[in-house]
């Protein structure tokens, strides 16, 4: 007549009940590993992780909507009306804010624990967060981490971008069970590896302080500095201006998040003459004493090339050509070498090829060669003094490091060591090429030392240390020619020349106090190297030889 109970054992019903039971008792989720940390060469932390929260409301669990709305409104600067509407929503979960800082998350937890207000239904879900304790320090080298559409952390630019796979580790999928009888330990994902960089935090700080100082001192619009060890290609410091804080890239997005030292291409100007002279010496065409009659003007492929000062220097030797940075002399050398020899040398120096540095978004530069539709015979002359050829600062530093390192060009790199699960993998220095003979490198080094000691770049000299280097003042190409007022002032130098431990390239964009590299970048180099030798514990040449002899 009436029915109190019916148990339906049909297949469909069993399937439904089974599914319902599994939905309630377990959930399939992805167990993500912690992202690997980044250290400098001495183990100082450059990037690590902490926690932020996702704040949401589960309307079915809210008991006192007024408490929830007013408390969150005070803490989050959100309107009470919106929050009340969220508590009354039909949806099972309403996202209120993501991310919420760790401090705020802890404050909400504390309020809930106090019990003064009823915050039932307020959900705080921890989410991983990347932290850069040094703020702006090495920001362009490190890059930053953001969340992609799936809510996963992904590294962009710099080390974070290049080594994203290593740092991210591998997440595993598993089942989280809520019924105690079925509970099993969470699966362990492959942790992200910790990376130790070749960067020296103290050198990096010096580079950034020097850069900031240069911007004020010389009224430059921007610039970049790189310090590498020419003997093994290790990048010790690298910075560009303007910079940004990777902790706040959302609030203050960087104008250019890329690292201009590896991504920014420019016409290097006179610092490039070092490579032209290296080619001329190595091909046997000239020696340091080869005389040159400087007329102050030379015609190459229909273009008339003058010296930077417009003056004719008369009889000089090759050291004089470098000392006075004579465009006419260098253009004559490249012309006499001929395009095949000249461009072959530039190619072996890596001009026009990426260095293969382990940083994201490296640019290849541009070297026009005969046969290219935009190559003209006049390029043979202008390329000799760094015009009409595009390089990244890192490419130029790498090429010149071959001269500092006895003719052997080492691959620049930023990764020193990888550590994962107590295993350590150390990066081995790689030879990128041997563009010139050791004798040529030694000869040119000596020429650059002499030209620096006698020439316009004497501001770069450091008492007690023999330094080789070259100034540069490059004009900035604009449509239809070159800007007549704006320059890139630069200096590239290394030392101590008998045992080089650093090579520094400084570029200043559009300095307003003086357009010349000899008056801006060169003294800046000198001031910086005076601090650098202390940080790198490099004794003056006399003391070093005396110590080595003991």
């Amino acid at each position, binding site marked *: 007549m009436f029915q109190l109970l019916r148990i339906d054992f049909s297949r469909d019903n069993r399937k439904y009940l089974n599914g319902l039971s599994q939905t309630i008792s377990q959930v399939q989720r992805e167990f993500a590993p912690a992202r690997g940390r980044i250290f400098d060469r001495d183990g*100082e932390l450059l990037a690590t992780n902490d926690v932020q929260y996702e704040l949401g409301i589960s309307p079915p669990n809210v008991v006192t909507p007024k408490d929830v709305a007013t408390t969150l409104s005070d803490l989050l600067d959100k309107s009470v009306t919106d929050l009340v509407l969220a508590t009354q929503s039909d949806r099972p979960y309403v996202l209120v804010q993501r991310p919420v800082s760790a401090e705020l998350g802890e404050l909400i937890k504390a309020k809930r624990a106090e019990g003064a207000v009823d915050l039932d239904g307020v959900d705080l879900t921890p989410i991983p967060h990347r932290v850069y304790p040094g703020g702006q320090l090495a920001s362009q080298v490190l890059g930053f981490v953001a969340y992609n559409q799936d809510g996963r952390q992904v590294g962009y630019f710099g080390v974070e971008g290049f080594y994203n796979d290593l740092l991210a580790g591998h997440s595993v999928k598993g089942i989280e069970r809520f019924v105690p009888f079925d509970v099993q330990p969470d699966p362990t994902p492959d942790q992200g590896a910790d990376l130790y960089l070749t960067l020296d935090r103290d050198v990096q700080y010096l580079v950034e302080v020097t850069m900031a100082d240069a911007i004020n001192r010389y009224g430059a619009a921007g610039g970049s500095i790189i310090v590498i060890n020419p003997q093994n290609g290790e990048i010790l410091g690298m910075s560009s201006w303007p910079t940004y804080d990777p902790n706040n890239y959302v609030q203050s997005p960087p104008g250019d998040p890329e690292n201009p030292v590896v991504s920014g291409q420019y016409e290097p100007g006179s610092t490039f003459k070092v490579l032209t002279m290296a080619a001329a010496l190595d091909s046997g065409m000239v020696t340091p004493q080869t005389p040159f009659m400087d007329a102050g003007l030379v015609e190459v492929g229909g273009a008339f*090339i003058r010296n930077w000062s417009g003056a004719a220097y008369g009889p000089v030797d090759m050291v004089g050509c470098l000392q006075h940075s004579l465009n006419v002399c260098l253009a004559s050398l490249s012309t006499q070498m001929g395009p095949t020899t000249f461009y072959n040398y530039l190619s072996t120096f890596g001009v026009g090829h990426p260095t293969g540095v382990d940083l994201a978004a490296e640019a290849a530069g541009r070297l026009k060669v005969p046969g290219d539709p935009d190559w003209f015979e006049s390029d043979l002359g202008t390329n000799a003094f760094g015009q009409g050829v595009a390089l990244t600062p890192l490419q130029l530093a790498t090429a010149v490091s071959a001269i500092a390192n006895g003719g052997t060009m080492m691959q620049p790199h930023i990764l020193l060591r990888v550590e994962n699960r107590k295993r350590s993998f150390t990066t081995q220095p790689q030879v990128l090429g041997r563009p010139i003979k050791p004798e040529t490198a030694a000869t040119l080094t000596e020429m650059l030392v002499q030209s620096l000691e006698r020439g316009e770049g004497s501001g770069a000299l450091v008492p007690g240390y023999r330094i080789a280097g070259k100034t540069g003042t490059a004009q900035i190409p604009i449509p239809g020619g070159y800007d007549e007022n704006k320059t890139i002032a630069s200096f590239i130098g290394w030392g101590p020349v008998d045992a080089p431990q650093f090579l520094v390239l400084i570029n200043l964009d559009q300095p307003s106090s003086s357009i010349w590299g000899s008056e801006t970048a060169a003294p800046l180099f000198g001031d910086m190297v005076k*601090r650098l030798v202390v940080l790198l514990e490099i004794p003056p040449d006399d003391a070093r030889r005396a110590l080595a002899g003991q």
Partner: protein
Amino acid sequence: MPSVYADQILRAFRQAPWRKQVQTVAALSIALLIIAVIGGFYLAAASRAGTAGRDVQRLEGRKAELIQENDELRAKLAELRSITRLADRARALGFAPAQMEQVEYLPVKNYPQPALVEAPPPEPVEGPPRAAVVSPGDWLAEQWQSLTGSREGIPMPGG
């Protein structure tokens, strides 16, 4: 024949109805006992599994908390040790970066130093210098050209 009587008594005893009932009850009791023992063991094991499961849940939660706490402390420590902060603090305490001339180098036995790589000496130059890249004749011609022709030169970079 006493043995015949004895057999009859024994058969009657074996075939007695209460005897069968006793056997059945005993068998059921034993079965129940076994089930109860197994059930007891099962309950004990299930209870222990449940307790262990709760422990695992609690420990996983605690582990996550500790990892989070550890990360936060590590980040805070790194922030406190950041070079910008240390430099500011050192400056506030009256320290200044060491200058080159203030440093005295002393020989310390076994102090790790980078290997000294001696660059080869410059190539010796023998005999008179080779021909000039630009001859005096060319130079004169260039000068003549520069005097006679008003030519558009391209802007020149330099030192």
